[in-house]
Protein backbone atom coordinates (compact mmCIF):
# COMPACT_ATOMS: atom_id res chain seq x y z
CA UNK A 1 0.00 0.00 0.00
CA UNK A 2 1.24 3.50 -0.85
CA UNK A 3 2.30 5.67 2.11
CA UNK A 4 -0.26 8.33 1.12
CA UNK A 5 -3.08 5.74 1.03
CA UNK A 6 -1.95 4.35 4.39
CA UNK A 7 -1.91 7.86 5.82
CA UNK A 8 -5.40 8.49 4.41
CA UNK A 9 -6.77 5.28 5.95
CA UNK A 10 -5.10 5.86 9.29
CA UNK A 11 -6.55 9.40 9.45
CA UNK A 12 -9.98 8.06 8.51
CA UNK A 13 -9.82 5.29 11.15
CA UNK A 14 -8.44 7.63 13.80
CA UNK A 15 -11.28 10.13 13.30
CA UNK A 16 -13.86 7.33 13.12
CA UNK A 17 -13.15 5.49 16.37
CA UNK A 18 -9.93 6.06 18.37
CA UNK A 19 -10.53 9.83 18.35
CA UNK A 20 -14.33 9.71 17.99
CA UNK A 21 -15.94 13.16 18.07
CA UNK A 22 -18.64 12.12 20.52
CA UNK A 23 -17.07 9.47 22.73
CA UNK A 24 -13.59 10.95 23.04
CA UNK A 25 -13.95 14.67 22.25
CA UNK A 26 -17.45 14.95 23.82
CA UNK A 27 -18.74 17.08 20.91
CA UNK A 28 -22.17 16.98 19.29
CA UNK A 29 -23.81 15.58 22.43
CA UNK A 30 -26.92 17.76 22.33
CA UNK A 31 -28.53 16.33 19.15
CA UNK A 32 -27.79 12.79 20.31
CA UNK A 33 -29.45 13.36 23.68
CA UNK A 34 -32.50 15.05 22.17
CA UNK A 35 -33.02 13.27 18.84
CA UNK A 36 -31.48 9.90 19.63
CA UNK A 37 -34.68 8.18 20.75
CA UNK A 38 -35.67 6.62 17.41
CA UNK A 39 -33.45 4.95 14.83
CA UNK A 40 -35.23 6.64 11.90
CA UNK A 41 -34.51 10.10 13.30
CA UNK A 42 -30.98 9.02 14.10
CA UNK A 43 -30.32 7.87 10.55
CA UNK A 44 -31.91 11.03 9.07
CA UNK A 45 -29.73 13.26 11.25
CA UNK A 46 -26.68 11.13 10.42
CA UNK A 47 -27.27 11.54 6.67
CA UNK A 48 -27.70 15.31 7.07
CA UNK A 49 -24.47 15.45 9.08
CA UNK A 50 -22.45 13.37 6.63
CA UNK A 51 -23.61 15.42 3.62
CA UNK A 52 -23.07 18.78 5.31
CA UNK A 53 -19.77 17.95 6.96
CA UNK A 54 -18.07 16.29 3.99
CA UNK A 55 -19.26 18.82 1.39
CA UNK A 56 -18.54 21.89 3.49
CA UNK A 57 -15.08 20.58 4.40
CA UNK A 58 -14.19 19.78 0.80
CA UNK A 59 -15.46 23.11 -0.53
CA UNK A 60 -13.67 24.96 2.22
CA UNK A 61 -10.44 23.03 1.59
CA UNK A 62 -10.57 24.27 -2.01
CA UNK A 63 -11.35 27.87 -1.02
CA UNK A 64 -9.24 28.21 2.14
CA UNK A 65 -6.14 29.67 0.48
CA UNK A 66 -8.14 32.48 -1.10
CA UNK A 67 -9.79 33.66 2.10
CA UNK A 68 -8.19 35.89 4.71
CA UNK A 69 -7.32 33.90 7.87
CA UNK A 70 -9.55 35.95 10.18
CA UNK A 71 -12.54 35.44 7.89
CA UNK A 72 -12.05 31.68 7.51
CA UNK A 73 -14.21 30.51 10.46
CA UNK A 74 -17.02 32.84 9.37
CA UNK A 75 -16.95 31.59 5.77
CA UNK A 76 -16.76 28.00 6.98
CA UNK A 77 -19.86 28.33 9.16
CA UNK A 78 -21.75 30.19 6.41
CA UNK A 79 -20.90 27.45 3.95
CA UNK A 80 -22.08 24.78 6.40
CA UNK A 81 -25.30 26.71 7.03
CA UNK A 82 -26.10 26.94 3.33
CA UNK A 83 -25.44 23.23 2.81
CA UNK A 84 -27.44 22.29 5.87
CA UNK A 85 -30.31 24.47 4.73
CA UNK A 86 -30.23 22.63 1.39
CA UNK A 87 -30.23 19.21 3.04
CA UNK A 88 -33.10 20.30 5.35
CA UNK A 89 -35.16 21.37 2.32
CA UNK A 90 -34.44 18.04 0.58
CA UNK A 91 -35.40 16.16 3.75
CA UNK A 92 -38.65 18.07 4.11
CA UNK A 93 -39.80 18.04 0.48
CA UNK A 94 -38.53 14.72 -0.83
CA UNK A 95 -37.95 12.38 2.11
CA UNK A 96 -40.26 12.90 5.10
CA UNK A 97 -41.96 15.99 6.47
CA UNK A 98 -42.58 14.08 9.74
CA UNK A 99 -38.88 13.37 10.30
CA UNK A 100 -38.09 17.00 9.42
CA UNK A 101 -40.65 18.16 12.01
CA UNK A 102 -38.80 16.13 14.67
CA UNK A 103 -35.35 17.26 13.63
CA UNK A 104 -35.75 20.89 12.59
CA UNK A 105 -34.86 22.25 16.02
CA UNK A 106 -31.58 20.35 16.08
CA UNK A 107 -30.46 20.75 12.48
CA UNK A 108 -29.00 24.25 13.04
CA UNK A 109 -26.86 22.77 15.83
CA UNK A 110 -25.13 20.62 13.26
CA UNK A 111 -23.62 23.76 11.73
CA UNK A 112 -21.74 24.30 14.96
CA UNK A 113 -20.85 20.63 15.08
CA UNK A 114 -19.19 20.81 11.66
CA UNK A 115 -16.50 22.88 13.37
CA UNK A 116 -15.02 19.61 14.70
CA UNK A 117 -13.12 19.18 11.50
CA UNK A 118 -12.28 22.84 10.91
CA UNK A 119 -8.75 22.47 12.33
CA UNK A 120 -7.94 19.54 10.07
CA UNK A 121 -9.08 21.54 7.03
CA UNK A 122 -6.79 24.48 7.70
CA UNK A 123 -3.80 22.56 9.12
CA UNK A 124 -2.18 20.84 6.04
CA UNK A 125 -0.02 23.02 3.82
CA UNK A 126 -0.20 21.66 0.26
CA UNK A 127 -3.50 21.78 -1.65
CA UNK A 128 -3.51 18.07 -2.52
CA UNK A 129 -2.65 16.98 0.98
CA UNK A 130 -5.30 19.37 2.31
CA UNK A 131 -7.99 17.82 0.11
CA UNK A 132 -7.17 14.19 0.90
CA UNK A 133 -6.69 14.76 4.62
CA UNK A 134 -9.89 16.81 4.78
CA UNK A 135 -11.84 14.05 3.07
CA UNK A 136 -10.42 11.40 5.41
CA UNK A 137 -11.04 13.45 8.54
CA UNK A 138 -14.54 14.57 7.53
CA UNK A 139 -15.63 11.07 6.54
CA UNK A 140 -14.16 9.57 9.70
CA UNK A 141 -15.71 12.22 11.96
CA UNK A 142 -19.12 12.13 10.25
CA UNK A 143 -19.33 8.34 10.26
CA UNK A 144 -18.02 8.18 13.83
CA UNK A 145 -20.73 10.64 14.93
CA UNK A 146 -23.34 8.67 12.95
CA UNK A 147 -22.27 5.35 14.47
CA UNK A 148 -22.71 6.64 18.02
CA UNK A 149 -25.97 8.41 17.16
CA UNK A 150 -27.44 5.29 15.52
CA UNK A 151 -26.38 2.94 18.34
CA UNK A 152 -27.77 5.31 21.01
CA UNK A 153 -31.00 5.84 19.01
CA UNK A 154 -31.51 2.10 18.46
CA UNK A 155 -30.92 1.21 22.11
CA UNK A 156 -33.20 3.97 23.39
CA UNK A 157 -35.94 3.14 20.86
CA UNK A 158 -35.83 -0.50 21.96
CA UNK A 159 -36.06 0.54 25.62
CA UNK A 160 -38.78 3.20 25.21
CA UNK A 161 -41.09 1.71 22.57
CA UNK A 162 -39.95 -1.91 22.20
CA UNK A 163 -39.44 -1.29 18.48
CA UNK A 164 -36.56 -0.89 16.05
CA UNK A 165 -37.08 1.33 12.97
CA UNK A 166 -40.72 1.44 14.13
CA UNK A 167 -41.03 -2.34 13.80
CA UNK A 168 -42.24 -4.11 16.97
CA UNK A 169 -39.68 -6.47 18.48
CA UNK A 170 -42.27 -8.61 20.26
CA UNK A 171 -41.50 -8.01 23.93
CA UNK A 172 -43.64 -6.23 26.51
CA UNK A 173 -40.98 -4.65 28.76
CA UNK A 174 -40.84 -0.87 28.36
CA UNK A 175 -38.68 1.81 29.94
CA UNK A 176 -40.26 5.12 28.84
CA UNK A 177 -37.92 7.03 31.18
CA UNK A 178 -35.08 6.37 28.70
CA UNK A 179 -36.47 9.39 26.83
CA UNK A 180 -34.94 11.66 29.50
CA UNK A 181 -31.67 13.27 28.33
CA UNK A 182 -29.87 12.12 31.49
CA UNK A 183 -30.33 8.49 30.42
CA UNK A 184 -28.73 9.49 27.09
CA UNK A 185 -25.80 10.98 29.01
CA UNK A 186 -25.36 7.79 31.05
CA UNK A 187 -25.55 5.66 27.89
CA UNK A 188 -22.91 7.80 26.17
CA UNK A 189 -20.77 7.58 29.30
CA UNK A 190 -20.87 3.78 29.22
CA UNK A 191 -20.16 3.76 25.46
CA UNK A 192 -17.15 6.05 26.01
CA UNK A 193 -15.93 3.78 28.82
CA UNK A 194 -16.32 0.72 26.57
CA UNK A 195 -14.29 2.45 23.83
CA UNK A 196 -11.53 3.40 26.28
CA UNK A 197 -11.49 -0.16 27.64
CA UNK A 198 -11.18 -1.67 24.16
CA UNK A 199 -8.40 0.81 23.28
CA UNK A 200 -6.56 -0.15 26.46
CA UNK A 201 -6.99 -3.85 25.67
CA UNK A 202 -5.63 -3.37 22.14
CA UNK A 203 -2.70 -1.34 23.46
CA UNK A 204 -1.86 -4.05 26.00
CA UNK A 205 -2.07 -6.77 23.34
CA UNK A 206 0.16 -4.88 20.93
CA UNK A 207 2.72 -4.19 23.68
CA UNK A 208 2.68 -7.91 24.57
CA UNK A 209 3.30 -8.79 20.91
CA UNK A 210 6.20 -6.34 20.79
CA UNK A 211 7.57 -7.88 23.98
CA UNK A 212 7.35 -11.40 22.48
CA UNK A 213 9.18 -10.26 19.36
Amino acid at each position, binding site marked *: MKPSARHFLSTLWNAFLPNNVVLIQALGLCPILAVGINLRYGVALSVCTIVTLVLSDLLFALLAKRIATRLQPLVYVLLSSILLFGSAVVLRLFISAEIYAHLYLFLPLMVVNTLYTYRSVIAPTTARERLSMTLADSLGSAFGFSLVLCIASALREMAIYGTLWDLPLGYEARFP*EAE*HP*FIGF*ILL*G*FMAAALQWSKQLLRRKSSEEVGML
Partner: protein
Amino acid sequence: MLKAATAPHLRAAQRPTYQSYGMLLCLVPLTAFSCLHYGIRPLLLVLSGILSALVTECICGLFRHGRPTMSDATCTVTGGLIGAMMSPLAPFWVPAIGSAFAIGVVKMPFGGTGRNIFNPAAAGMAFCAVCFPTRLFMYPDPTLTDSLPLLDTSAVITAASPTAQLNSGGTTSYGWLSLLSGDFPGPIGSTGVLILLACALYLFARRSSSPLILVPYLIVCAIGAALFPRASITAVTSVSLELCTGLLLFSGVFLLSDPVTAPRFWLARILYGVIAAILTMILRHYGRFECGEFFAVMLVNSFSPLLDRSCWHLTALLRRKREEVAQI
Protein backbone atom coordinates in the same frame (compact mmCIF):
# COMPACT_ATOMS: atom_id res chain seq x y z
CA MET B 1 6.87 7.61 55.86
CA LEU B 2 3.91 9.20 54.07
CA LYS B 3 1.41 6.75 52.64
CA ALA B 4 -0.96 7.74 49.81
CA ALA B 5 -4.41 6.23 50.26
CA THR B 6 -7.80 6.69 48.70
CA ALA B 7 -10.83 8.14 50.49
CA PRO B 8 -12.56 7.74 52.92
CA HIS B 9 -9.72 9.09 55.03
CA LEU B 10 -10.57 7.77 58.47
CA ARG B 11 -8.62 7.51 61.68
CA ALA B 12 -6.51 4.37 62.11
CA ALA B 13 -9.10 2.76 64.37
CA GLN B 14 -11.88 3.23 61.84
CA ARG B 15 -12.50 1.28 58.69
CA PRO B 16 -15.27 1.71 56.10
CA THR B 17 -16.99 -1.32 57.65
CA TYR B 18 -16.95 0.36 61.11
CA GLN B 19 -18.75 3.35 59.64
CA SER B 20 -21.14 1.18 57.63
CA TYR B 21 -22.16 -0.90 60.64
CA GLY B 22 -22.91 2.28 62.56
CA MET B 23 -25.18 3.53 59.76
CA LEU B 24 -26.88 0.14 59.42
CA LEU B 25 -27.49 0.05 63.15
CA CYS B 26 -29.19 3.45 62.88
CA LEU B 27 -31.47 2.18 60.12
CA VAL B 28 -32.80 -0.60 62.37
CA PRO B 29 -34.85 1.57 64.81
CA LEU B 30 -36.01 3.83 61.95
CA THR B 31 -37.36 0.87 59.98
CA ALA B 32 -38.79 -0.71 63.12
CA PHE B 33 -40.63 2.54 63.88
CA SER B 34 -42.19 2.52 60.41
CA CYS B 35 -43.07 -1.17 60.84
CA LEU B 36 -45.00 -0.26 63.98
CA HIS B 37 -47.26 1.96 61.87
CA TYR B 38 -47.49 0.01 58.63
CA GLY B 39 -46.59 -3.64 59.31
CA ILE B 40 -43.78 -5.63 57.74
CA ARG B 41 -43.85 -3.84 54.34
CA PRO B 42 -41.28 -1.09 55.18
CA LEU B 43 -38.80 -3.75 56.34
CA LEU B 44 -39.21 -5.67 53.09
CA LEU B 45 -38.68 -2.47 51.07
CA VAL B 46 -35.41 -1.77 52.91
CA LEU B 47 -34.30 -5.40 52.46
CA SER B 48 -35.14 -5.24 48.76
CA GLY B 49 -32.86 -2.20 48.40
CA ILE B 50 -30.06 -3.96 50.30
CA LEU B 51 -30.38 -7.20 48.34
CA SER B 52 -30.31 -5.38 45.01
CA ALA B 53 -27.24 -3.37 46.06
CA LEU B 54 -25.42 -6.55 47.12
CA VAL B 55 -26.26 -8.36 43.88
CA THR B 56 -25.21 -5.36 41.74
CA GLU B 57 -21.91 -5.01 43.63
CA CYS B 58 -21.24 -8.74 43.11
CA ILE B 59 -21.97 -8.44 39.37
CA CYS B 60 -19.72 -5.37 39.09
CA GLY B 61 -16.98 -7.27 40.96
CA LEU B 62 -17.40 -10.12 38.48
CA PHE B 63 -16.81 -7.67 35.62
CA ARG B 64 -13.84 -5.95 37.22
CA HIS B 65 -11.99 -8.79 38.91
CA GLY B 66 -13.42 -11.89 37.24
CA ARG B 67 -15.03 -13.01 40.50
CA PRO B 68 -17.91 -11.66 42.62
CA THR B 69 -16.44 -9.35 45.26
CA MET B 70 -17.78 -7.24 48.10
CA SER B 71 -15.01 -5.15 49.56
CA ASP B 72 -16.97 -3.76 52.52
CA ALA B 73 -20.50 -3.12 53.76
CA THR B 74 -20.89 0.29 52.08
CA CYS B 75 -23.15 -1.13 49.37
CA THR B 76 -25.45 -2.50 52.10
CA VAL B 77 -25.70 1.00 53.57
CA THR B 78 -26.49 2.48 50.14
CA GLY B 79 -29.26 -0.08 49.56
CA GLY B 80 -30.60 0.38 53.08
CA LEU B 81 -30.65 4.18 52.78
CA ILE B 82 -32.50 4.02 49.45
CA GLY B 83 -35.03 1.60 50.95
CA ALA B 84 -35.47 3.91 53.96
CA MET B 85 -36.15 6.92 51.74
CA MET B 86 -39.02 5.13 49.94
CA SER B 87 -42.71 5.57 50.62
CA PRO B 88 -44.15 2.57 52.51
CA LEU B 89 -46.46 2.15 49.49
CA ALA B 90 -43.68 1.94 46.88
CA PRO B 91 -43.51 -1.30 44.88
CA PHE B 92 -40.59 -3.57 45.86
CA TRP B 93 -38.90 -3.15 42.50
CA VAL B 94 -38.45 0.63 42.95
CA PRO B 95 -35.78 0.46 45.73
CA ALA B 96 -34.24 -2.50 43.87
CA ILE B 97 -33.84 -0.42 40.69
CA GLY B 98 -32.66 2.63 42.66
CA SER B 99 -29.98 0.57 44.43
CA ALA B 100 -28.87 -1.11 41.22
CA PHE B 101 -28.51 2.34 39.61
CA ALA B 102 -26.64 3.71 42.63
CA ILE B 103 -24.09 0.88 42.67
CA GLY B 104 -23.91 0.06 38.95
CA VAL B 105 -23.85 3.61 37.57
CA VAL B 106 -22.81 6.02 40.33
CA LYS B 107 -20.39 4.00 42.45
CA MET B 108 -18.62 1.17 40.64
CA PRO B 109 -17.81 2.85 37.26
CA PHE B 110 -15.86 5.51 39.20
CA GLY B 111 -13.73 2.88 40.95
CA GLY B 112 -15.86 1.69 43.87
CA THR B 113 -15.75 2.67 47.54
CA GLY B 114 -13.98 5.95 48.21
CA ARG B 115 -13.82 7.08 44.61
CA ASN B 116 -17.41 8.05 43.79
CA ILE B 117 -18.03 11.76 43.12
CA PHE B 118 -21.70 11.76 44.11
CA ASN B 119 -23.40 10.07 47.03
CA PRO B 120 -24.75 6.82 45.51
CA ALA B 121 -27.87 6.73 47.70
CA ALA B 122 -28.78 10.33 46.76
CA ALA B 123 -28.23 9.56 43.06
CA GLY B 124 -30.30 6.37 43.30
CA MET B 125 -33.15 8.33 44.87
CA ALA B 126 -32.86 11.10 42.27
CA PHE B 127 -33.12 8.45 39.56
CA CYS B 128 -36.25 6.96 41.16
CA ALA B 129 -37.79 10.42 41.65
CA VAL B 130 -37.31 11.37 37.99
CA CYS B 131 -38.39 8.00 36.61
CA PHE B 132 -41.16 6.92 38.99
CA PRO B 133 -42.49 10.08 40.74
CA THR B 134 -46.02 8.73 41.20
CA ARG B 135 -44.70 5.67 43.06
CA LEU B 136 -42.43 7.63 45.34
CA PHE B 137 -44.46 10.45 46.81
CA MET B 138 -47.73 8.70 47.70
CA TYR B 139 -47.93 7.91 51.41
CA PRO B 140 -50.43 5.84 53.43
CA ASP B 141 -52.54 7.47 56.11
CA PRO B 142 -50.69 6.82 59.42
CA THR B 143 -53.95 6.77 61.38
CA LEU B 144 -54.82 3.42 59.74
CA THR B 145 -54.85 0.60 62.22
CA ASP B 146 -54.33 -2.28 59.73
CA SER B 147 -50.94 -3.30 58.35
CA LEU B 148 -50.29 -2.50 54.71
CA PRO B 149 -50.91 -5.37 52.24
CA LEU B 150 -47.65 -6.76 50.84
CA LEU B 151 -48.47 -6.74 47.13
CA ASP B 152 -51.65 -4.95 46.05
CA THR B 153 -51.65 -1.52 47.70
CA SER B 154 -54.21 0.08 45.37
CA ALA B 155 -56.97 -0.06 48.02
CA VAL B 156 -54.89 1.64 50.74
CA ILE B 157 -56.14 5.06 51.82
CA THR B 158 -53.47 7.65 51.13
CA ALA B 159 -52.89 11.02 52.76
CA ALA B 160 -51.05 14.14 51.66
CA SER B 161 -47.75 14.59 53.47
CA PRO B 162 -47.13 17.87 55.33
CA THR B 163 -44.50 18.73 52.69
CA ALA B 164 -47.08 18.28 49.91
CA GLN B 165 -49.56 20.43 51.84
CA LEU B 166 -46.93 23.16 52.21
CA ASN B 167 -46.07 22.82 48.50
CA SER B 168 -49.66 23.52 47.52
CA GLY B 169 -49.62 26.62 49.74
CA GLY B 170 -52.39 25.36 52.02
CA THR B 171 -52.39 24.98 55.78
CA THR B 172 -51.43 21.76 57.50
CA SER B 173 -53.10 20.04 60.42
CA TYR B 174 -49.94 18.46 61.86
CA GLY B 175 -48.83 20.02 65.14
CA TRP B 176 -45.67 19.70 67.22
CA LEU B 177 -46.86 16.54 68.96
CA SER B 178 -47.72 14.75 65.69
CA LEU B 179 -44.37 15.72 64.21
CA LEU B 180 -42.33 14.53 67.18
CA SER B 181 -44.30 11.30 67.56
CA GLY B 182 -43.91 10.54 63.84
CA ASP B 183 -47.67 10.52 63.34
CA PHE B 184 -47.62 11.99 59.82
CA PRO B 185 -47.31 10.60 56.28
CA GLY B 186 -43.76 10.42 54.95
CA PRO B 187 -40.92 8.18 53.76
CA ILE B 188 -40.03 5.09 55.84
CA GLY B 189 -36.94 6.43 57.57
CA SER B 190 -37.87 10.06 57.97
CA THR B 191 -40.97 10.09 60.20
CA GLY B 192 -39.19 9.06 63.39
CA VAL B 193 -37.84 12.54 64.11
CA LEU B 194 -36.65 11.81 67.65
CA ILE B 195 -35.01 8.56 66.51
CA LEU B 196 -33.25 10.48 63.72
CA LEU B 197 -31.88 12.96 66.25
CA ALA B 198 -30.72 10.08 68.46
CA CYS B 199 -29.06 8.50 65.39
CA ALA B 200 -27.26 11.79 64.70
CA LEU B 201 -25.93 11.89 68.29
CA TYR B 202 -24.87 8.24 68.08
CA LEU B 203 -22.99 8.86 64.80
CA PHE B 204 -21.32 11.96 66.31
CA ALA B 205 -20.25 9.90 69.32
CA ARG B 206 -18.77 7.22 67.02
CA ARG B 207 -17.08 10.00 65.00
CA SER B 208 -18.76 8.56 61.89
CA SER B 209 -20.49 11.85 61.20
CA SER B 210 -19.53 15.47 61.76
CA PRO B 211 -21.68 18.05 63.60
CA LEU B 212 -19.83 20.69 61.54
CA ILE B 213 -22.03 19.71 58.59
CA LEU B 214 -25.35 18.86 60.23
CA VAL B 215 -25.60 21.79 62.67
CA PRO B 216 -25.02 24.62 60.10
CA TYR B 217 -27.31 22.74 57.70
CA LEU B 218 -30.18 22.65 60.20
CA ILE B 219 -29.61 26.24 61.37
CA VAL B 220 -29.66 27.67 57.82
CA CYS B 221 -32.71 25.55 56.93
CA ALA B 222 -34.48 26.86 60.04
CA ILE B 223 -33.60 30.48 59.19
CA GLY B 224 -34.83 29.95 55.62
CA ALA B 225 -38.08 28.41 56.87
CA ALA B 226 -38.64 31.25 59.36
CA LEU B 227 -37.92 34.02 56.84
CA PHE B 228 -39.71 32.48 53.85
CA PRO B 229 -42.61 30.29 54.99
CA ARG B 230 -44.27 28.38 52.15
CA ALA B 231 -47.79 28.90 53.48
CA SER B 232 -49.60 31.49 55.60
CA ILE B 233 -48.36 30.05 58.91
CA THR B 234 -46.30 31.43 61.79
CA ALA B 235 -42.50 31.31 61.62
CA VAL B 236 -42.31 28.73 64.43
CA THR B 237 -44.77 26.39 62.71
CA SER B 238 -42.95 26.83 59.42
CA VAL B 239 -39.60 25.92 61.03
CA SER B 240 -41.01 22.85 62.78
CA LEU B 241 -42.77 21.63 59.64
CA GLU B 242 -39.79 22.17 57.35
CA LEU B 243 -37.26 20.55 59.67
CA CYS B 244 -39.28 17.54 60.73
CA THR B 245 -40.98 16.55 57.48
CA GLY B 246 -39.76 15.21 54.15
CA LEU B 247 -36.19 14.00 53.87
CA LEU B 248 -34.51 17.14 55.23
CA LEU B 249 -33.35 15.68 58.55
CA PHE B 250 -32.68 12.23 57.07
CA SER B 251 -30.45 13.57 54.31
CA GLY B 252 -28.63 15.79 56.83
CA VAL B 253 -27.86 12.85 59.12
CA PHE B 254 -27.09 10.15 56.56
CA LEU B 255 -26.38 11.60 53.10
CA LEU B 256 -24.51 14.85 53.72
CA SER B 257 -22.08 13.37 56.24
CA ASP B 258 -20.92 10.62 53.87
CA PRO B 259 -17.11 10.59 54.43
CA VAL B 260 -16.37 10.00 50.74
CA THR B 261 -18.28 12.91 49.26
CA ALA B 262 -18.15 15.42 52.17
CA PRO B 263 -15.19 17.80 52.57
CA ARG B 264 -12.47 16.98 55.10
CA PHE B 265 -11.47 20.47 56.22
CA TRP B 266 -13.45 22.02 59.11
CA LEU B 267 -14.30 25.34 57.42
CA ALA B 268 -15.21 23.57 54.17
CA ARG B 269 -17.57 21.32 56.15
CA ILE B 270 -19.39 24.31 57.63
CA LEU B 271 -19.75 25.95 54.20
CA TYR B 272 -20.81 22.60 52.73
CA GLY B 273 -23.66 22.38 55.25
CA VAL B 274 -24.68 26.00 54.57
CA ILE B 275 -24.71 25.55 50.77
CA ALA B 276 -26.63 22.27 51.11
CA ALA B 277 -29.23 24.02 53.27
CA ILE B 278 -29.64 26.92 50.82
CA LEU B 279 -30.05 24.50 47.91
CA THR B 280 -32.49 22.36 49.89
CA MET B 281 -34.71 25.34 50.72
CA ILE B 282 -34.60 26.62 47.12
CA LEU B 283 -35.57 23.17 45.84
CA ARG B 284 -38.35 22.95 48.42
CA HIS B 285 -39.74 26.28 47.27
CA TYR B 286 -39.31 25.95 43.53
CA GLY B 287 -38.54 22.27 42.88
CA ARG B 288 -40.71 19.92 40.90
CA PHE B 289 -40.77 17.26 43.61
CA GLU B 290 -41.94 17.57 47.20
CA CYS B 291 -38.69 15.94 48.43
CA GLY B 292 -35.77 17.41 46.51
CA GLU B 293 -33.15 16.98 49.24
CA PHE B 294 -31.24 14.30 47.32
CA PHE B 295 -30.83 16.71 44.39
CA ALA B 296 -29.40 19.28 46.81
CA VAL B 297 -26.99 16.64 48.17
CA MET B 298 -25.80 15.76 44.67
CA LEU B 299 -25.35 19.42 43.75
CA VAL B 300 -23.35 20.20 46.86
CA ASN B 301 -21.25 17.03 46.37
CA SER B 302 -19.87 18.60 43.22
CA PHE B 303 -18.62 21.62 45.24
CA SER B 304 -16.89 19.47 47.85
CA PRO B 305 -13.31 19.31 46.42
CA LEU B 306 -13.44 23.01 45.51
CA LEU B 307 -14.58 23.93 49.05
CA ASP B 308 -11.83 21.82 50.61
CA ARG B 309 -9.14 23.40 48.47
CA SER B 310 -10.26 27.01 48.69
CA CYS B 311 -10.94 26.91 52.46
CA TRP B 312 -7.56 25.34 53.13
CA HIS B 313 -5.83 28.06 51.10
CA LEU B 314 -7.89 30.77 52.79
CA THR B 315 -7.04 29.63 56.33
CA ALA B 316 -3.36 29.18 55.37
CA LEU B 317 -3.32 32.74 54.02
CA LEU B 318 -4.97 34.13 57.16
CA ARG B 319 -2.52 32.23 59.38
CA ARG B 320 0.44 33.59 57.42
CA LYS B 321 -0.90 37.15 57.67
CA ARG B 322 -1.42 36.75 61.41
CA GLU B 323 2.15 35.49 61.85
CA GLU B 324 3.47 38.44 59.84
CA VAL B 325 1.55 40.89 62.02
CA ALA B 326 2.83 39.15 65.19
CA GLN B 327 6.43 39.39 63.95
CA ILE B 328 6.05 43.11 63.28
